């Protein structure tokens, strides 16, 4: 266990705990407006202050964490669910037309930054959290396909795979039983990185109005609301901004720490 992993795990765990706690308890109702209490700086009654409608920022941050985590998690799920089988199939049939089609398809998706996918989807179907999930998820597919293929290719040259083939196992079965468990570490690390990128992407999409719609609280929307009032009440921007930074930082540190912990070879030549 490295210090990086512990620190990253603690930060990520804190955000996750906050999101889970918001399911049963928040200091105030995050939607309850109290105009007389608007734009209060942080104090004992409102730990993180109130917004321009007098809503409790701490409660909004807690519920917003749920939105961020849900969007990023499902987007990683889509990316893994489709990308990993594609990567395994491409590696199992290296050099075949299937490999070529999958990899060229990946290149094609890579040409569409997630923001551009979101713009296209929103232009056609309208904004919303679901469309943000789809946009980020589609962007994740080629990432996982490449990592899986890259990790699987050298494995196919190894003796234990040869033994499995001699034993008469099909390429599909070998992929599932022998290749997948051996690339799992890579996938966990990449999953953490994509999760943190998903949090950032969700915040950006919500900020420009392409993500979660009101009344669903989201960190990106809180920042969009804060924009015109940031000079009056800087905490409106500081609080959601710090929530995003700490979450992403925690996940990135956890990814780095996991990579070092899961791959002993990397640990030896660590820089």
């Amino acid at each position, binding site marked *: 266990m490295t210090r990086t992993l512990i620190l990253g795990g603690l930060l990520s765990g804190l955000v996750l705990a906050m999101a889970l706690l918001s399911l049963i308890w928040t200091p105030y109702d995050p939607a309850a407006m109290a105009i007389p209490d608007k734009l209060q700086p942080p104090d004992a009654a409102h730990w993180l202050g109130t917004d321009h409608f007098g809503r409790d920022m701490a409660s909004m941050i807690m519920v917003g964490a749920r939105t961020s985590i849900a969007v990023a998690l499902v987007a990683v799920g889509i990316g893994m669910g489709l990308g990993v089988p594609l990567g395994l199939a491409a590696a199992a049939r290296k050099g075949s037309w299937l490999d070529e089609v999958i990899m060229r398809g990946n290149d094609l998706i890579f040409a569409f930054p997630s923001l551009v996918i979101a713009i296209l989807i929103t232009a056609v179907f309208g904004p919303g959290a679901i469309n943000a999930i789809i946009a980020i998820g589609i962007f994740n597919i080629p990432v996982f396909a490449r990592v899986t293929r890259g990790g699987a290719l050298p494995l196919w040259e190894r003796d234990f795979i040869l033994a499995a083939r001699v034993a008469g196992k099909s390429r599909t079965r070998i992929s599932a039983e022998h290749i997948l468990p051996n690339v799992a570490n890579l996938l966990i690390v990449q999953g953490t990185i994509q999760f943190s990128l998903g949090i950032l992407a969700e915040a950006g999409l919500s900020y420009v109005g392409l993500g979660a719609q009101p009344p669903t609280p989201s960190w990106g929307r809180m920042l969009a609301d804060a*924009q015109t009032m940031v000079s009056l009440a800087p905490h409106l*921007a500081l609080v959601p901004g710090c929530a995003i930074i700490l979450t992403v930082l925690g996940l*990135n540190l956890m990814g780095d720490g996991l990579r070092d912990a899961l791959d002993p070879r990397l640990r030896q030549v660590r820089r």
Partner: protein
Amino acid sequence: MGTYLLRRVLSLVVSLALASVVIFAVVEIAPGDPARFMLGVNAQPDTVAALRAELGLDQGKVARYLAWVGGMLSGDFGTSYTYRTPVAQMVADRLQVSLPLAGYALVLSVLIALPAGIYAAARRGRPGDVAVMGATQLGIAIPNFWFAMMLVLIFAIRLRWFNAGGFAGWDAGLWAGLHALTLPAIALALPQAAILARVMRSALLDVLGEDFMRTARAKGLTRGQALRRHGLRNALIPVLTIIGLQFSFLLAGGIIIEQVFYLPGLGRLIFQAISARDLIVVESVVMLLVFAVIVVNFAVDLAYVAVDPRLRARS
């Protein structure tokens, strides 16, 4: 080299064609009829039909796709549904903001990242390295639009060194234009610089372990001389790829930053078009962004081969 170039050009053309089909198909499934949308719900059916014919909407999907692609190839992006002006002209106007912004941010990113990465690599494991790496971790985690808001708060509202937003156009002078784009460019450059600095550092560390570096030292070069003459040149190869990738990210990422600073670039154009359901504008701007990504990646691939003789031999 000849066949390599031919293969790459062919794959470039196929990628662009496929991307255009995908974009066209996605916009095609959008519900609603643009002609009806432009004329309002109370329009007479024959007026709608006439406008549909004028916009070419009465033709088949394949014919319309070919007309769209053919038009773009000759610089005709169609006519905006809401503004009734040529999309190409609107895009060209907006690019005068978005392209310089992306270029400015790229220059800043390189100017910050390369020295930081080289410094960290040279001080590997020492406090300077740890500080730079810590700063890059933070830089990657900071959303650029939030950083942009903080820059506005500090440098525009509190210190009044810059305007909080807006762009008067290049007619106001080069200096005024650059001044207006400085805060947006810094905000856009920060996360990219953090990534680039990390790539620069690890590329340089990889090179430092190579045999030719030891040979250079054995020849009597100092550590610094060996680094400058042999190390940097080799380490720049992966860095070049990332710089290429970043340009397209900066162009797309500018869409969000333009919102913070109220800049009249592609970003604002595309969001106005989305809310007005001006799909032909959305279609064309998205195609332009994807075109930029694909072409820049292609150029980076070629630059790769030009810079590294080993790759030339292999291809």
